[in-house]
């Protein structure tokens, strides 16, 4: 037996030795990855990019890489976000915003050296419209493939089916693809869809490197990018490394194995922000958080009840939940939206007023139970639900917290009969044009997650339609003021807050440029550079 125990000891010693041998093989990076061409920055993000095709898909991580590999006619830049010329050096529209003419730069080139001309732009728009996925919804109601005409190799004309003032605001997300490259990989008439899921055919500042699904996506900088680079030096490339857990992102950042990360919790951002060598980018975003009511079915169909809830809610608690990294909404439109106006009568907690409205409602004595549906696992939304429970108790309203997965939530929101009385919704407008927010309250948005309010207000719908068809901003602006007031009067939701957008980065990462129109963790990788040491 002793002999057996001795051999057990030998086994343990061998294992310990093995672990040490393994340990010596580890090579934690002290800073950004270095290559012979220069530094390579590592972006640690949680969301994969399974489909890169600009005609099929967009979300924050997908768009971040599309933005790096492709160019569009125009680009959003800065805070406040402005539309800047990009592939188009100038443009003009006719009096009623039905004809838009774009003049292209003459030095833009795709990765294979082919010139970016009007024919390529026409092909790209037609492809996206024909495939009818991803960003197609932005323009499909106003633009048909036969409405796109090549005037000359550097001039393109769009003729819309109807006046549409926000047209330009959506163009930054319509990327231009190389027709030769795409069609060379067409299979069974799919317009190259299968190939384009993992391959790029763009003219952007980067080209594709290693593309390992589930692991990383590598971007290699093009030294001869036609537009040039914003800084004297630029990184040799960027690796978008998938990190599934916030704990892994934080650890990688601290260890110097990631140079910039997104998606940490509020507490984590506060903690890492105090560490030497780490800086936190903290910017006011455009994503609104609201508790949407079902305005057609159930007790919340009663406007006075909705007002009562809006006045009973403790808005300061929202800011506390986000450790102060948020700003209360002062209008249904976020401040970054053109035409935003601060409305003086935005509800704030006022129990007396809440009781007044309750008394005017059909539920004067309370005694009702309302569902609050939120995304399972989202701790902030659960905490907001707890605040609701507490706030609505004095009104005699019981709140039932219902955590659901996102697919089940959207399934509930799809029909007015099943849409919950209250549902926690974050909504990010895709453009800074006011129509991008106003249309969320139009009846055409019913059934979408942000349209789970089922707001029925024909006059509001008419105003929204009139505003989007008005070309002159001076005439549009008063309409949007009216729209904001009208939405507030309808109280389709508890207008909550705008959580700050935050990233944590090592201090050697410079050039970070925030734009509120970007989605969740989306970063303009073209702007990043490495500080000279």
């Amino acid at each position: 037996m002793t002999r057996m125990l001795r051999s057990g000891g030998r086994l343990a010693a061998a294992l310990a030795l093995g672990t040490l041998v393994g340990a010596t093989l580890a090579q934690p990076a002290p800073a950004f990855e270095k290559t012979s061409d220069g530094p390579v920055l590592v972006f640690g993000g949680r969301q994969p990019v399974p489909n890169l095709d600009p005609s099929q898909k967009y979300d924050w991580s997908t768009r971040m890489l599309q933005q790096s590999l492709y160019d569009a006619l125009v680009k959003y830049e800065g805070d406040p976000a402005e539309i800047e010329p990009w592939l188009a050096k100038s443009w003009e529209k006719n009096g009623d915003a039905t004809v838009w003419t774009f003049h292209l730069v003459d030095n833009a080139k795709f990765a294979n050296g082919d010139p970016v001309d009007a024919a390529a732009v026409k092909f790209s728009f037609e492809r996206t419209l024909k495939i009818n996925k991803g960003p197609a919804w932005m323009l499909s109601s106003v633009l048909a493939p036969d409405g796109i005409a090549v005037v000359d190799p550097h001039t393109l004309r769009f003729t819309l089916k109807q006046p549409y003032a926000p047209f330009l605001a959506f163009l930054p997300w319509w990327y231009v693809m190389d027709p030769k490259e795409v069609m060379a990989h067409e299979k069974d008439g799919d317009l190259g869809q299968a190939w384009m899921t993992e391959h790029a055919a763009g003219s952007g500042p980067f080209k594709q490197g290693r593309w390992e699904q589930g692991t990383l996506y590598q971007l290699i900088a093009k030294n001869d990018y036609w537009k040039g680079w914003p800084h004297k030096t630029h990184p040799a490339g960027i690796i978008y490394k998938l990190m599934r857990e916030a704990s892994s992102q934080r650890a990688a950042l601290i260890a110097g194995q990631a140079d910039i990360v997104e998606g940490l919790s509020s507490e984590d951002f506060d903690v890492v922000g105090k560490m030497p060598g780490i800086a936190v980018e903290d910017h006011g975003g455009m994503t609104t958080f609201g508790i949407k009511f079902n305005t057609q079915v159930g007790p919340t169909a009663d406007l006075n009840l909705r007002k009562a809830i809006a006045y009973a809610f403790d808005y300061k608690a929202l800011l506390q939940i986000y450790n102060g990294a948020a700003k209360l909404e002062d209008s249904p439109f976020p401040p970054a939206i053109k035409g935003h106006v601060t409305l003086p009568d935005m509800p704030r907690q006022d129990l007396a007023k809440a009781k007044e409205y309750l008394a005017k409602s059909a539920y004067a004595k309370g005694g009702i139970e309302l569902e609050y549906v939120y995304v399972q696992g989202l701790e902030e939304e659960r905490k907001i639900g707890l605040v609701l429970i507490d706030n609505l108790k004095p009104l005699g309203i019981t709140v039932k917290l219902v955590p659901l997965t996102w697919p089940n939530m959207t399934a509930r929101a799809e029909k007015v009969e099943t849409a919950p009385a209250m549902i926690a919704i974050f909504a990010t407008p895709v453009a800074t044009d006011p129509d991008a927010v106003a249309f969320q309250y139009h009846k055409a948005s019913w059934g979408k997650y942000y349209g789970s309010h089922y707001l029925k207000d024909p006059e509001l719908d008419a105003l929204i339609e009139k505003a989007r068809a008005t070309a002159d901003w001076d005439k549009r602006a008063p309409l949007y003021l009216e729209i904001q007031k009208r939405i507030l009067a309808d109280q389709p939701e508890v207008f909550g807050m705008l959580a700050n957008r935050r990233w944590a980065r090592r201090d050697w990462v410079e050039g970070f440029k925030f734009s509120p129109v970007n989605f969740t963790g989306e970063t303009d990788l073209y702007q990043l550079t490495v500080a000279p040491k």
Partner: protein
Amino acid sequence: MARFVGRRLVFLVAMLLGLLLLTFAISHVAPGDPASLAAGPDATPEMVEQIRQEYGLDRPLPVQLGRYLLGILQGDLGRSVRTNHDVLADLADFFPATFELVTVSILIAVLLGIPLGVLSALGRNGWFDQLARVVSVSGVAIPMFWLGLMLQLLVALDLGWLPLGGRLGLMSTPPEPITHLYLLDSLLQGQWQVFGDAAAHLLLPALALCFPALASIIRVNRAEMIEALGQDYIVTARAHGLGGFRTVCLYALKNAMLPTLAMIGLRFGWMLGGTVLVESVFDWPGIGLYATQSAIAQDFQPIMGVTLLIGISFMLANLLVDLAYVWLDPRTREPA
């Protein structure tokens, strides 16, 4: 033996068919619309309908099932609605990573668990046995996710001995795929640096994943060894002057291994389908994360593909265990 294997294979096909029917039924009765989710939050009803038609989701359920089963016979597992990827290609990408992780984990668990179980039984109620008991109780009690996080914080972040996550260093190029298992492929191609890098990346997730299996193997093996060591044939062997090592390893352990083997087979199958937490912590690009993302998006084809693959692996692992049973215990062999 051939008849035995043949019968088990027929049984395996029937089981897989049952498994597919069950998964198909469950995934299609769940609320939510995969076409709507794939189309995106802003998609128009026409866009959603187009996706529904493109992927055949507008067909009656029996037709969808029939087409799917026909596709399997032709080696086509369909396309993901969420990503537009070919499911078979996705499985070929992600499964080897999980298989490598699980195989190394189970190897660690077996190589550590069996000797520890034997030594615990030999030193019953002694200090070593108590220590092994602590290990095995901890293995069952400590959540794998938490253990992974702790290992990551201590070994990778604080001590800096091993990488935080991933399958290979960021700037390392994976070996040319032969088996798609990095350890094996790098060995076959003599790429020692890649092998070392892959091994270093594998160690922490494998340790985190193996711990529950290790605990079970220690407990089961210890109990079986105690029973075997008390049998008459062991007393007889000792009375005949056979050495301790020979008695324990050749006679007692061989008999004690039967239940342990059955459990290893079950554990292997369970680990193949249960790696998602470890994969999340260590950014391991395996099938667990792929399955989870597909399930969240109600992407039926990948869910069915993963179920099929894990089902086959599980059943093959158990077939191997059955064969090992027959090899170890002549009483289970069929008469010629």
